[in-house]
């Protein structure tokens, strides 16, 4: 099913493992080179920045080619069926994608761009031709993204396919009537929960290497969807907007207490399990969802003014981080506060210092040259790429 040379993809995995083993001083340089020789991978995968450049340039080519094609066709045939043009063009782009993959492009920016452009053109074209319902659209996206994930193992496509699947389940189920509507959150939780466990099991059995990233992303999506489905804010506001539930300002939803418990307890369970199982995915998603808990509570109960909450929260975070670091001064129970072996791209580009400059810089330019909007940049022929 996969478009890329499967043997090479598996070899890439072996090479990655060899690299990691070499970086943690477990194998020698000759051993690494021997492994690399024994497991060849002839893909064209350039450096990350070159990939960005190729992605942008390919997008420009695809868009202007579409424009040129449209100009020619519309002026020659007096035909204004934009949707049809989009669909046909999307298929052409897809053919181009298959061609480039044959040419050994793998994560080169070219194949990424062609994939997104093809999918976007087809979906956009179908929506322009006919009035497509939500359910049909979700179904369409599910099929397309599922196909692209299976064929190109793209991780973002995996996430989109997952969310589209949940959307299909949701939109189908609520058609069944009032009882179904009332039980939707539980159904979604059951479905996402089962999917999470299933994918997790599947990952344990070491499936083919190229899909692991996509499946891990699906796990993350499942964990987040599971939380969102039980979140008090989401359930309450969705009931009001989508099911016309007539609620007063301070009125709670049926079973409100249960959703409150779920809202608060799920992130705690994620974090707890994450620490217990040493599972970085669970732990990080759990930490992220703490923000969800805080916003949900603050939306309904104004216990503290925002600034006081910020100060208290800030102090709490600082103390928490400080004390955990202190506690792990020497590694305990297999945890450490020191950096792992994985080198981050973030380190190389010194992203941290840029984030600091952006978030903390309060210095305004002097008043006489102060902010004036509408400065003239980007006027040059519509080329993208302001970094």
């Amino acid at each position, binding site marked *: 099913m996969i478009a890329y040379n499967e043997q090479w993809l598996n070899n890439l995995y072996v090479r990655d493992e060899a690299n990691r083993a070499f970086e943690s001083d477990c194998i020698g340089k000759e051993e690494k080179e021997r492994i690399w020789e024994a497991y060849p991978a002839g893909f064209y995968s350039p450096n990350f920045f070159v990939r960005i450049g190729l992605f942008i340039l390919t997008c420009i080519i695809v868009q202007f080619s579409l424009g040129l094609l449209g100009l020619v066709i519309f002026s020659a045939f007096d035909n204004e069926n934009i949707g049809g043009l989009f669909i046909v063009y999307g298929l052409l782009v897809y053919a181009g994608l298959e061609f480039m993959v044959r040419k050994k492009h793998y994560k080169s920016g070219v194949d990424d761009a062609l994939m997104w452009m093809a999918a976007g053109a087809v979906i956009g074209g179908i929506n322009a031709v006919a009035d497509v319902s939500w359910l049909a659209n979700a179904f369409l996206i599910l099929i397309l993204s599922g196909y692209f994930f299976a064929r190109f193992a793209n991780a973002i496509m995996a996430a989109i396919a997952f969310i589209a699947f949940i959307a299909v389940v949701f939109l189908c189920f609520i058609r069944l009537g009032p009882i179904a509507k009332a039980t939707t959150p539980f159904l979604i939780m059951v479905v996402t929960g089962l999917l999470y466990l299933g994918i997790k099991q599947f990952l344990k059995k070491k499936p083919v290497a190229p899909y692991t990233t996509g499946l891990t992303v699906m796990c993350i999506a499942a964990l987040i969807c599971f939380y969102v489905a039980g979140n008090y804010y989401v359930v309450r506001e969705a009931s009001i907007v989508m099911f016309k539930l007539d609620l007063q300002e301070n009125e709670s939803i049926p079973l409100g207490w249960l959703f409150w418990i779920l809202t608060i307890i799920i992130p705690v369970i994620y974090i707890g399990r994450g620490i217990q199982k040493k599972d970085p995915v669970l732990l990080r998603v759990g930490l992220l969802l703490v923000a969800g808990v805080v916003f949900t509570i603050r939306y309904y109960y104004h216990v503290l003014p925002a600034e006081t909450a910020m100060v208290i929260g800030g102090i709490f975070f600082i103390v928490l981080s400080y004390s955990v670091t202190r506690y792990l001064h020497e590694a305990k129970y297999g945890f450490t506060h020191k950096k792992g072996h994985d080198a981050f791209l973030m380190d190389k*580009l010194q992203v941290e210092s840029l984030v600091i400059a952006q978030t903390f810089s309060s*210095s305004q*330019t002097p008043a006489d040259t102060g902010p004036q909007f509408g400065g003239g940049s980007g006027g040059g022929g519509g080329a993208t790429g302001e970094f």
Partner: protein
Amino acid sequence: MDIPLFEKLQANGLISDESLVKLKAYENSKLFSLHWELKTILYLGILLLSGGLGILVYKNIDTIGHTAILVFIGLLSAGGFLYCFKAKLPFSFAKVAAPNAFFDYVLLLACLCFVTFIGYLQYQYHFFGNRFGLVTFIPMLVLFFSAYYFDHLGILSLAITNLCAWAGIAVTPLRILQDNDFSSNTIIYTGLVMGVGLIVTGLITRARQIKPHFAFTYTNFGMHILFISVLAGMFLFTMVYLLWFVLLGGVVFYFYREALRTKSFYFLLVLTLYSYIGLSYVIIRILFFTLNTDVGGIYLSFMYFIGTAVGLIFFLIRMNKKIKAA
């Protein structure tokens, strides 16, 4: 690590028995790193605390009184600096590691409080009278000093931002295009001088080995400011835009050499995109202003974009090979 895989490799004679033993030992003693989690929480904490304190002060200014607030911020800053002076490792022109995980953040807090302190002093008491420049100049000096003395890249970025603010341009990543009025001559010339100055500073930093790891930050800021200023110059001075285009070519050539020398794919990408914007502007201008084509011009411009993008793709692919091989 995938132990079954390495067992297979060992069976095939690709790795030695000792290596496999080492791998197994490593896998068994492997620690779970909480580094990024803890750092993110700490960063969030400082963000929330400094933001919350700011609002708190702003809202309660009538009851607390300006002097009390000023004293509090000043004390916080002084305390932070005092700690840093005590805790820091000996100064050196090479890279100096932070003595512990919190040092960098305490220094950041101290510096931020100092900037607020000076601004507040001026705003409330007009301490510097009408010499507004001093309000950004003094924090800038302190920031540069802290960046070098305590070896902190984040503070260096803040200091450069401050330097540019003092000269009259905003350069934080998200504001560089929004807040600057590039239709004024002064800002373009300031940008040119600033960009060149920063790039030269980067060069000196590396040549003299004065904190050589700071060089990238200088060059990076300088590069973007210079490119944007040159492009702005081209868009604004339409009478002589070709002259600016030549200037752009010079800058591109310089960074092309730099990219090759430092093997930097990042520089390569940046220079490609900026020069593409510049070239496209010139072509569009010639097509629609000089030659005054209409529909034919649209066709031509579309073909131009397709053709050049294809060309640039081949250029990037070739450069990728070249830099890798270098």
